[in-house]
């Protein structure tokens, strides 16, 4: 198929139809978020008198501003820590063939297998005993450890395929191991860093279970916990809830549309890792 034929056109129509089906829930989301609660017409009918009242009300009552800041802080700090410690750890793990290195790598890879449910209750107890419940820093600590196995896995795979000549040259020129990592190796890891950054950021931002355990009942919430709390409070006030959902989706979709190429490649990048 190198020419646009009649069959290509039919396929195009079919694909557009599929896309409309996929987009239908989003249409309803926007449609109902713009609708006054008094309007009880069918949810699929375009809203006759759109209003932004739901958005102002949801924003004020759900505490979404504070939640947004908390989510940004937790995601940024934990992803930076995970990328730093995992890339640093991956360097000797990929280069050394000593027993300790292989053993440590296998131990970390075990973390890919263990579902976090196994660790979550004992860890909850530790966090509680340390007095960290209700603090967003407990989450930073949690993600900084939780995401190590996956991120290290990506870095080690990439590093093993990377020639050692550059770092050898750097050490001959008098670089310490830390300097050659920082100035020679790490910059070459950029493709895998982008993948790890995207996957970790999306994973941390969207995570719900652990923030629900650690932050429920406190004033410090992340976006998903604030949304769940808001839904619990306004059970059937769907116009208000939809406005809150839409507010939470907009920053995510804005970042996605702005960086779509990197993000899609990041998700697909696990394939080469």
């Amino acid at each position, binding site marked *: 198929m190198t020419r*646009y034929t009649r069959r*290509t056109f039919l396929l195009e129509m079919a694909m557009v139809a*599929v896309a409309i089906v996929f987009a239908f829930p989003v249409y309803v989301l926007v449609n109902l978020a713009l609708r006054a609660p008094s309007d009880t017409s069918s949810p699929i009918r375009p809203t006759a008198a759109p209003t932004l009242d739901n958005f102002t009300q949801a924003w004020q009552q759900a505490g979404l501003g504070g939640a947004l800041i908390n989510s940004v802080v937790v995601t940024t700090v934990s992803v930076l820590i995970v990328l730093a410690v995992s890339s640093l750890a991956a360097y*000797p793990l990929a280069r050394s063939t*000593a027993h300790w290195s292989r053993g440590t790598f296998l131990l970390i890879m075990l973390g890919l297998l263990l579902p976090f449910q*196994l660790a979550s209750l004992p860890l909850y107890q530790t966090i509680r005993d340390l007095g960290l419940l209700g603090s967003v820093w407990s989450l930073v600590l949690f993600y900084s450890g939780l995401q190590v196995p996956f991120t*290290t896995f990506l870095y080690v795979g990439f590093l093993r395929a990377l020639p050692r000549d550059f770092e050898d040259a750097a050490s001959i020129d008098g670089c310490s191991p830390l300097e050659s990592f920082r100035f020679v190796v790490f910059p070459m890891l950029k493709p895998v860093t982008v993948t790890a950054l995207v996957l970790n950021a999306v994973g941390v931002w969207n995570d719900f279970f652990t923030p629900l355990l650690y932050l429920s009942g406190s004033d410090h919430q992340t976006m998903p916990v604030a949304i769940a709390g808001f*839904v619990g409070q306004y059970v059937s006030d769907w116009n208000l809830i939809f406005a809150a959902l839409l507010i939470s989706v907009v920053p995510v979709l804005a970042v996605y549309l702005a960086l779509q190429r990197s993000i899609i490649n990041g998700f697909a990048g696990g394939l080469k890792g």
Partner: protein
Amino acid sequence: MTATRSRRPRVTPPWWFVAPAMLLFAFVVLVPSARGLYYAFTDWDGLDPEFSFVGLRNFADMLDDPNALRAVWHTILLAMAITVIQNGIGLLLALGVTTLIKTRNVLRVLLFAPAVVTPIVTAYLWRNLLGPDGAVNSLLGAVGLGSWEQDWLGNPRLALWMIVLVIVWQFAGYSMVIFLAGLQSIPREIYEAAALDGTGPFRRFWYVVRPLLAPAITINLMLSIIGGIKLFDQVYALTGGGPGHATDTISTLIYKDAFTLGEFGYSIALAVVLTVIVAIVSAGQYSVLSRNERAAS
């Protein structure tokens, strides 16, 4: 030149580079998992510092607990259904957007978009869409299928499939993107050669594309099976495990037993069962798929 290089001592980075990652990993994953494994054999309630070792009683109790057995079944059923349907649709979408259609770039961005949205948010959206007054019923009414209208999540026989629907809607685009990356790594000449040989599209897919797609298939199956087994957020937000226990999975039962019933020991025993299922599936999948991949390459 080669001789001098091989004689030059290689500098190996020092072991302490691993230390920060290892400390965090040990604190968050390793030590609590080991403790969890131990608690699974106790009657710990989560608060009382005094608890006793009960051997295999928690696991024996599970066999007498119809909710636990159903949760295990639901977990396996969800994981299998999601894996088959999500990857099937994801593959069709990928094949659709690798053609010459003009909207291919827009479609790719649009179809992948749900995958970056917070799962709990999409689940709440769908909870309304599938409700008695929701858009799905309105749509059915509008196209003359009014007799199908119902409370989709309130029907114990359908609720589990509605969870599958929501997950597939959100993540089919994710599967698509991974298949796309696989398809793009197949050289054009191979397609053209097969087309010149007069092979039909289905045979071409099965004998030419599918073997070369093996790495993408591996990744996709791994992601969706493991993700399906660990599923929690969407079930929590869509049905909370209900109606009754019709959609309880191991993960929702762990949460309920621990935090509403205070049975931490039993709850962690359930987590151990989950771990074993994940380990068996991963090991099985790894051996089968790596054999296929080797056969294909």
